[in-house]
């Protein structure tokens, strides 16, 4: 049931991309996303696709894994495509039938926006598939740490993320158990209209929240007992060091940006 949901799906193999510094990967993923938006002509998609294929190869990722990441998006994709197709104003009419008119401009923008969406999601999945969640939060904390000087809670944010990652499986298991317990008392989660269904969730949600608060209290106590007192004076187990590979990856990504800008 609920247990089947997988989150933060790290793909545990060794590869060039896996070995990169998480900070480099986060920044380069952002650069990649910018590149996706820079390209306005359809030809700009060519270097991007090539770049994705090359990255997947260097990351030892089967293309199937990347496609799996797009699958949940198909409804939004179709929606984006259809919306752009029918509602973009243009002069070159390709098809006209009753009140529906498809223009060349419409088709172009439908393809462009759908491709962008696919590229963005693929870029993000490469990041999460090749980076352990722990490394990701570590990298994020280190990247945001300069902002801590102006009062931005970089450490707290990263700590919250890593605790969330730790407790998602525990709470999913718990939700599954509470659901079964209420079903054993005759609760019905599966039939009725929207309001009835929402109401039926109360016996699941109340215990789940009560339990989450109890766990939070326990955890805070346990963290304090283990000398936790915020980010100040804290050392870290994982030492992040930028290396030659990170430089290579950065150059590769810059090349992509250049290619996209050239093609326009």
């Amino acid at each position, binding site marked *: 049931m609920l247990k089947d949901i997988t989150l933060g799906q790290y793909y545990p193999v060794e590869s060039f991309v896996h070995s990169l510094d998480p900070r480099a990967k986060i920044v380069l993923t952002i650069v990649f996303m910018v590149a996706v938006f820079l390209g306005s002509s359809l030809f700009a998609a060519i270097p991007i696709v090539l770049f994705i294929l090359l990255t997947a190869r260097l990351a030892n990722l089967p293309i199937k894994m990347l496609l799996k990441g797009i699958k949940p998006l198909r409804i939004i994709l179709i929606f984006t495509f259809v919306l752009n197709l029918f509602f973009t104003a243009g002069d070159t009419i390709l098809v006209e039938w009753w009140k529906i008119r498809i223009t060349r401009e419409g088709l172009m923008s439908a393809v462009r926006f759908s491709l962008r969406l696919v590229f963005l999601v693929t870029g993000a999945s490469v990041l999460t598939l090749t980076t352990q969640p722990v490394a990701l939060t570590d990298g994020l904390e280190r990247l945001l740490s300069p902002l801590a000087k102006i009062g931005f809670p970089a450490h707290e944010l990263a700590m919250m993320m890593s605790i969330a990652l730790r407790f998602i499986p525990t709470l999913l298991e*718990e939700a599954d*158990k*509470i659901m*079964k*317990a*209420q*079903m*054993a*008392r*005759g*609760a*019905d989660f599966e039939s009725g209209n929207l309001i009835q269904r929402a109401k039926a969730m*109360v*016996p699941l949600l*109340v*215990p789940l929240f*009560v*339990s989450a608060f109890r766990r939070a209290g326990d955890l805070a106590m346990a963290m304090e007992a283990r000398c936790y007192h915020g980010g100040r004076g804290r050392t870290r187990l994982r030492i992040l060091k930028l290396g030659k590979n990170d430089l290579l990856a950065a150059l590769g990504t810059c090349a992509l940006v250049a290619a996209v800008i050239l093609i326009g």
Partner: protein
Amino acid sequence: MPIKIEHMSHTYQPGTPFKSDALEDIDFTIEDGDLLALIGHTGSGKSTLAQHLNGLLTPTAGRVLVDGQDINGKDVNRRALRQRVGLLFQYAEYQLFEETVYKDIAFGPKNQGLSGEKLDRRVRAAFDKVHLPPETLEKSPFELSGGQMRRVALAGVVAMEPEVLVLDEPIAGLDPKGRDELTEIIHELHRGGVTIVLISHNMDDVARIATKVAVLERGRLAMLGTPREIFSRGDELEAMGLDVPQTIQLCRALRAGGLEVPDCLTGEELCEAICAAKGVPSHA
């Protein structure tokens, strides 16, 4: 209302190597009036088996017959059939959600379609059976102690008036007082005519109150019999990594030392047996 389990198997996520908590060809009957203890260590399939008894899980092979009817069958009223078997989960206090103990106990019978005076009678009868102070009925369940909350959860299941009550480690995590009180409540429910399936790790309790014991080992039914029959096979139980009640352990040690005593399940029984073997006059 007997529950007949016929060659039942269950595989989680079939086709993957993850099969640790699966069941294989379970075949036995839970008779009316049994207090059946289900023992086996964690991962042996006890909880999986329990969830089959009221249809929360569906067997991948075989059948579960309640009163002769397949609880997963197409032509029967599955909901009604399943509600004749009540199930109390482990750490059941965490399923409470209502504003008052009264409302929480009423949740199950309400789902059965009861209302008004009938519902009120059900709730109060179930509440009486778990021996909580009367003023708790109108309190919030979250104000109670862990042991009291667990008893409220038990009342919530009892209120559905199941003929068979399946209890998954009902005393886990309680203090000695809480354990004794809850064990006594279970014993009383059984004497009141409810068939009980009790999953437990506490062999001394099992020896004291169970009428039958089923031992699960890696998803298979390894033994089934009276507590005396099962615990007399202490070597096999220990080989499975299960405890043997201390009284039985002592009987074995005494026989090894040359004092002939039969296997005894309670201290009183054992005391009599030792006195008899030693030639101490009874009731001196």
